[in-house]
């Protein structure tokens, strides 16, 4: 058996993400104990109407989230509330639970609840006769039956501490960490626990030791109870009085923290708010230990003496025939906790076919690595954006000379005014109230065979021409005419031999000056000589010029349009912001800009049956 948290407990968790985490621990316990999930509801107004997913083994159970406790009790059979919200809201949550007729047990983990609130909860819980455990209570563990809260820790500890089946010892502590430790000690020195309760270390815990001792006394399976007390308050003294009042069935073992207080400065604050009172008199560790001893409890001198004391009691109980040896199971004999794929991959026990492959960047460390170089180290060493482009687009750390060319290409192509297709599309989108990323995307969509998208093709054919027709320009032009059509990268709508494109001239001059080897550019210039002889505007345009140079520098053909896309994105973002700032109005073109080459008005015939 166990006390008040058992196979009949049906829990609602009041709280958000932290509450869900606690519920996951409870679901793990269900898996170990072979119980159906007993967390039936959450109360968390921001997520009301949704569900929280909990795993019991590899089964996923969706638990409803309600706005109020009343909704939760109206819709589910919950009888136990776990309060997992901040101190400013915890008291009201617990009050609601005390006032809700369907709720019988409340456990509150919240720390830092004002004492006055705790006292009001004590009063209300007395009036309603309900169990109000907490504040700052780690929860309740009934081995093999029920776990309310995170008490017991992780799955492996549940197994090691034999919490998969009841033992013979009850546990009462103020400290959460120690309740876990005591369960572990009892599993080593005896046969494990029936129920362990952390009541919280506040000055006024809403429940007391005596209430629970009475319950343990009436639980035939509990043969002995371990109390871990500490200085402050008088719950231990009350427990001693209870134990001394009449012959009790259960053995009582007590250990008290706080003897060090006799040697420390007065008024010193310990970890628990409740651990603060008198040095020698009421509330002192010595006073409590003496009271328990006098009442007939077993009180080891130090915490270290607790294990042997428990063992002695256990052996006596066995000798008296009161307890029989209980099975001890190992992890192999118990349900395994399904692990996430990550766990097995980390342990090297599972191979997963990767979904994608990346050869340029790695985000798994402290900072991104570009082609193996930490980003911050590149910055510190003086590298620039063109080097990052080189690393991410060609996997090469390009030279400073090459970086300068890339920098110029991007600067030259960053924008070309509002009238070109890309900018106009972005402006239209901006004026229609479209957001930045979509408006820029609208501009980028325009990049293609007629607008800015000739770089890749130009690079491709200049490379082909250089390799196959280096000394035979007419042969190249003939091959192009037969197989492709006009040479991409050659020709301009407004620029010509007489009105040259300054951007092209300056780029070529720089490349030559820098002494970069440019066989494809040279080839393209020879092509230009021939084509401009035929027609003045068949000049090498900026796309063709960029394409030849970038191909010469080793950028793969497929990446070449990327330079235009990257560069022009700068301009498109600018145009979007420009319209936003100016409050550009919705654009609708005028009728007179449309040639309505439509048929005259016709009579609609009846629908063909």
């Amino acid at each position, binding site marked *: 058996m166990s006390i008040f948290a058992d196979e009949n407990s049906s829990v609602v968790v009041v709280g958000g993400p932290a509450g869900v985490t606690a519920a996951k621990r409870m679901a793990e316990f269900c898996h170990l104990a072979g119980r159906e999930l007993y967390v039936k509801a959450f109360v968390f107004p921001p997520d009301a109407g949704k569900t929280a997913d909990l795993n019991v083994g590899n089964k996923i159970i969706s638990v409803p989230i309600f706005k109020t406790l009343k909704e939760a009790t109206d819709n589910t059979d919950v009888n136990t509330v776990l309060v997992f919200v901040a101190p400013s809201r915890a008291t009201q949550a617990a009050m609601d639970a005390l006032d809700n007729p369907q709720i019988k047990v409340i456990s509150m983990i919240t720390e830092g609840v004002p004492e006055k609130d705790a*006292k009001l909860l004590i009063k209300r819980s007395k009036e309603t006769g309900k169990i109000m455990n907490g504040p700052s209570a780690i929860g309740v563990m009934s081995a093999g039956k029920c776990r309310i809260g995170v008490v017991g820790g992780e799955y492996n500890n549940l197994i090691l501490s034999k919490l998969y089946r009841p033992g013979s010892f009850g546990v009462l502590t103020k400290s959460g*960490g120690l309740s876990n430790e005591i369960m572990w000690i009892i599993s080593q020195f005896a046969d494990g626990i029936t129920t362990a309760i952390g009541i919280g270390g506040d000055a006024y815990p809403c429940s007391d030791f005596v209430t629970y001792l009475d319950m343990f006394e009436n639980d035939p399976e509990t043969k002995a109870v371990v109390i871990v007390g500490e*200085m402050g308050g008088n719950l231990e003294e009350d427990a001693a009085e209870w134990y001394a009042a009449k012959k009790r069935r259960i053995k009582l073992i007590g250990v008290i923290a706080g003897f060090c207080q006799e040697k420390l400065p007065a*008024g010193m*604050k310990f970890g628990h708010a409740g651990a603060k009172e008198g040095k020698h008199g009421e509330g002192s560790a010595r006073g409590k230990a003496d009271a328990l001893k006098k009442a007939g409890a077993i009180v080891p001198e130090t915490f270290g003496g607790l294990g042997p004391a428990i063992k002695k009691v256990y052996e006596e109980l066995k000798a008296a025939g009161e307890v029989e040896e209980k099975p001890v199971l190992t992890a192999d004999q118990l349900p395994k906790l399904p692990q996430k794929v990550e766990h097995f991959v980390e342990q090297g026990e599972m191979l997963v076919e990767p979904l994608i492959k990346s050869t340029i960047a790695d985000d798994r460390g402290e900072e991104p690595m570009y082609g193996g170089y930490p980003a911050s180290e590149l910055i510190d060493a003086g590298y620039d954006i063109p080097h990052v482009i080189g690393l991410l687009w060609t996997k090469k750390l390009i030279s400073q000379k090459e970086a300068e060319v890339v920098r110029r290409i991007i600067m030259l192509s960053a924008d070309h005014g509002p009238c070109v297709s890309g900018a106009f599309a972005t402006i239209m989108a901006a004026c229609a109230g479209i957001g930045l990323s979509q408006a820029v995307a609208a501009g980028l969509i325009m990049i293609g065979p007629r607008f800015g998208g000739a770089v890749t093709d130009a690079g491709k054919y200049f490379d082909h021409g250089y390799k196959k027709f280096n000394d035979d320009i007419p042969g190249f032009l003939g091959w192009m005419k037969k197989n492709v059509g006009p040479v991409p990268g050659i020709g301009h709508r407004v620029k010509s031999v007489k009105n040259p494109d300054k951007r092209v001239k300056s780029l070529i001059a720089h490349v030559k000056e820098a002494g970069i080897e440019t066989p494809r550019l040279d080839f393209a210039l020879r092509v230009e000589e021939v084509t401009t002889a035929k027609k003045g505007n068949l000049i090498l345009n900026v796309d063709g010029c960029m394409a030849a140079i970038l191909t010469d520098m080793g950028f793969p053909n497929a990446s070449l349009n990327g330079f235009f896309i990257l560069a022009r994105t700068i301009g498109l973002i600018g145009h979007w912001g420009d319209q936003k700032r100016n409050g550009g109005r919705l654009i609708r073109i005028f009728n007179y800009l449309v040639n309505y080459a439509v048929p005259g008005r016709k009579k609609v015939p009846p629908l063909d049956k």
Partner: protein
Amino acid sequence: MAKLLEGPAMALFEKWGVKTPYHIVISDVNQLEDLIEANKWMNDRKMVVKAHEALGGRFKLGLVKIDLDKEGVKKAVREIIGREVQGLVISQAIVAEMISHDEEYYIAVQATREGAEILLAKMGGIEVEANWDKIKRTFVEVGEKPTDEQLIKLAEEAGFEGELAGKVAKFAHSFFECYDNEDGQYIEINPLILNPKNNEITALDAVTNLDGDARFRHPDWNFSFASEFGREYTPAEKKVMEIDSKVKGSVKLIEIPGGTTALLPAGGGASVFYSDAVVNLGGTIANYSEYSGDPPSWAVEALTEEVCSLPGVSNIIVGGAIANFTDVKATFAGIISGFRKAKDEGKLDGVKIWVRRGGPNELAGLAAMRELKDEGFDIEVFDRYTPLTDIVDMALGKQESAQ
């Protein structure tokens, strides 16, 4: 429990109609002249000047000066502010009107588990401390208020008569309102007097302890709490408190000068057992510390650095029970970083570290701790199979190390 200095305490009293003498808190001696000019009462009354700090025994330390005129006040304030006492430089003084009176009384409200007790005596000062049994008490249940009849009965039982009993009862009512509305834990006035000048019951000196956890519902609490053990907090303690107020979970530090065993344990409960274990074996602790509630590793790292900086330490106890939800690996990562820094700064020379812990990710956390051995740390690491406080026995040489 959080203690208030007199200045903010008197402000709260006034808020609830509890009369106090004229008073001001001064932190800048240069403002003295202006303040005297602005406060008429400072020009025609006798005054008392006290150091406005959390120091015990101020009278004996010469930090209380009485029966002063305004020149005397100037001299006293200049003497007190800036003085160094017990390693603390006094930064504030409180100047209050000195009220001559014939009789002294005593009143207090003490929180109990069920509500509160109002304590009243028709004697004050040291007389009441010698006659504790003469104090009369009345109980008020939590959520309730004392009735007028109840308070008059209390006043009469304490020996107040007639009109005075009514005045005292009325005062007790305001005093209780202050306690109740301001989340009091223990508030005491000693002495309480009848001011002959205006015939009003007035609080001359007060002990005011409020519930620091209730701060969230008191936006007008613009004061910080004072230390409760008769000395100001040290810079390291203040630093850790500052971190504690910001993080999930908690980190705590109190320095205890002269101790040789430093504590860096986890958990509000286990930490006290570790302290007990050291003291029980005749050792001395250099601090009380604990971290709990899965605090972020940087907070634990900061606490570790402070613990490593304690002087004269020969052992550091990194103890802890089997955690419920505090991640051992993550919190140990903070401790390890703190240790590494301390070692680089030479703070761990001749210091032996003892570790025992369990809980989520215990294997990884303990393994990381063990690796410190290879870095030249003098460290012994134990897992859940070594009982909680055995590392203290080993550290203090009462038990052979198993490793």
